[in-house]
């Protein structure tokens, strides 16, 4: 069924008894042309674009839990394309353009809200670095505005401008950045892929990968063996674990990142704001809760929860930026497992096995990338060549010395 004002009206008159499930719940078939491991945002988006743009429809997405149980349903929902580096910027801008048309494209309300993203700066050096990044963005045709202190104050009057250590001098704003309802992204892509014939198979964990020489023949799962023509990995925080099934050793560490939501407040913060003197980012959801987060925990973890030390750290950073937060109660916090790569940038490439493809290493910025990651990975799977915006995400860049180190902190995963 196509969702529209008319379908809403019709279903209202029939007392909402005729809504159908948004996707099927099929049993696995014996064989698929393409199997995608991981029903997170990236796996589902890949299936959607494969079936829609590239005409590959005999596809299964295998998800070990329920749909949306991974990072796609755990993130702080921020989207932006304010990147400095040549290899990153066009890709994230491609993603932003896809976000801008996504809801019409997959006929689902994902609450894409381009409310603006403001990165605060607190020193002359930081202003210069932001100016450089803003200029790089503009050279790529991306919107960027450098705001001075008064311009920021007009939008965000409640910040601690005269903090003795971190006075706020201004901010770099991308007005087209914002937030998107993360669950709805998973649901929209799932529904769209399902309508094109893709089988989305939940509670189906891949436990082993079968191969014959340098060819993958299929996978073993908790719901039986399934054969495939091509195999695509999009398992985020479980990348190293699944790659080990085919003796692949990755430049990735898994780390936990927490997110928090406060009690509902009256409208207070109407953009996304990030602290420049620490790691803290916040927006206000349509329900009124403040949604915020900070740093990863700093040690390898496969547990989808964090520790109190990080809760304290995030709260301190938040209060240094917005003193009024001291009055706000935190309602919930949760964690997800980040696939932290050694230069902070993703990997999307072929592998040492001829029909195995890898997508991972998104660190804590993979939500904004969801549509472009799906599109580009589908392009790679269907054509065997990288999409023009994703040519820098090669697996061998570490060995060749072509790191994509947006943050400039080198090969230490927990610094990205």
């Amino acid at each position: 069924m196509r969702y529209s004002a008319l379908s809403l009206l019709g279903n209202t008159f029939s007392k909402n008894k005729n809504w159908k499930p948004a996707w099927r719940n099929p049993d696995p078939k014996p064989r698929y042309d393409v199997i995608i491991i991981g029903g997170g945002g990236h796996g589902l988006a890949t299936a959607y674009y494969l079936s829609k743009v590239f005409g590959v429809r005999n596809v299964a997405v295998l998800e070990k839990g329920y749909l949306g149980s991974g990072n796609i349903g755990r993130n702080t929902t921020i989207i932006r394309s304010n990147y400095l580096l040549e290899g990153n910027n066009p890709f994230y801008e491609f993603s932003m353009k896809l976000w801008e048309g996504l809801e019409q494209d997959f006929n689902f309300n994902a609450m894409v809200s381009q409310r603006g993203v403001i990165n605060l700066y607190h020193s002359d050096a930081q202003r210069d670095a932001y100016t450089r990044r803003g200029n790089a963005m503009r050279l790529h045709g991306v919107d960027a505005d450098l705001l001075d202190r008064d311009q920021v104050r007009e939008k965000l009057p409640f910040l601690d401008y005269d903090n003795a250590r971190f006075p706020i001098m201004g901010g770099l704003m991308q007005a087209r950045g914002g937030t998107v309802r993360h669950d709805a992204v998973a649901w929209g892509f799932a529904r769209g892929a399902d309508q094109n014939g893709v089988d989305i198979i939940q509670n189906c964990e891949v436990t082993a990968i079968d191969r014959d020489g340098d060819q993958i023949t299929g996978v073993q799962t908790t719901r039986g063996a399934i054969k495939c023509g091509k195999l695509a990995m999009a398992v985020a925080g479980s990348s190293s674990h699944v790659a080990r099934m085919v003796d692949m050793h990755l430049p990735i560490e898994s780390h936990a990142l927490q997110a928090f939501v406060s009690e509902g407040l009256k409208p207070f913060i109407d953009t996304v704001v990030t602290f420049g003197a620490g790691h803290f980012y916040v927006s206000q959801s349509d329900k009124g809760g403040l949604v915020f987060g900070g740093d990863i925990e700093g040690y390898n973890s496969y547990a989808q929860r964090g520790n109190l030390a990080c809760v304290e750290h995030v709260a301190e950073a938040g209060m240094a930026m917005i003193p009024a937060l001291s009055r706000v109660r935190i309602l919930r916090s949760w964690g997800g497992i980040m696939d932290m790569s050694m230069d902070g940038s993703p990997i999307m490439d072929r592998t040492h096995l001829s029909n195995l493809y890898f997508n991972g290493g998104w660190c804590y910025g993979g939500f904004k990338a969801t549509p472009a990651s799906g599109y580009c990975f589908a392009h790679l799977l269907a054509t065997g060549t990288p999409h023009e915006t994703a040519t820098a995400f090669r697996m061998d860049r570490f060995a060749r010395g072509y790191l994509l180190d947006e943050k400039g902190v080198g090969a230490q995963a927990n610094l990205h």
Partner: protein
Amino acid sequence: MSSLVKCPHCGLRPREEFTIRGEVPTPRPAAGADESVWFDHVYLRDNPRGQHREYWHHSGGCRRWLVLDRNTVTHETGDVVDASTLKSEGRA
């Protein structure tokens, strides 16, 4: 995470006194070693789900580098030794 960690020098100490550096990599290659050996040492990680050997620094105590076994799912910590024992065994 365990809230008490047994430093071989200082005994049971609160977890907050320690700084975690991360996975114990392959032994540091010789300066002239092949690039692929260096690549492995600098960039590749085992990143296991389960038992993990990692460097910890007792930054709020004796300031020695330690090697610790920790489970990356349950966060239970196991054996702790001074990092120099790895070196004498040629594993660091």
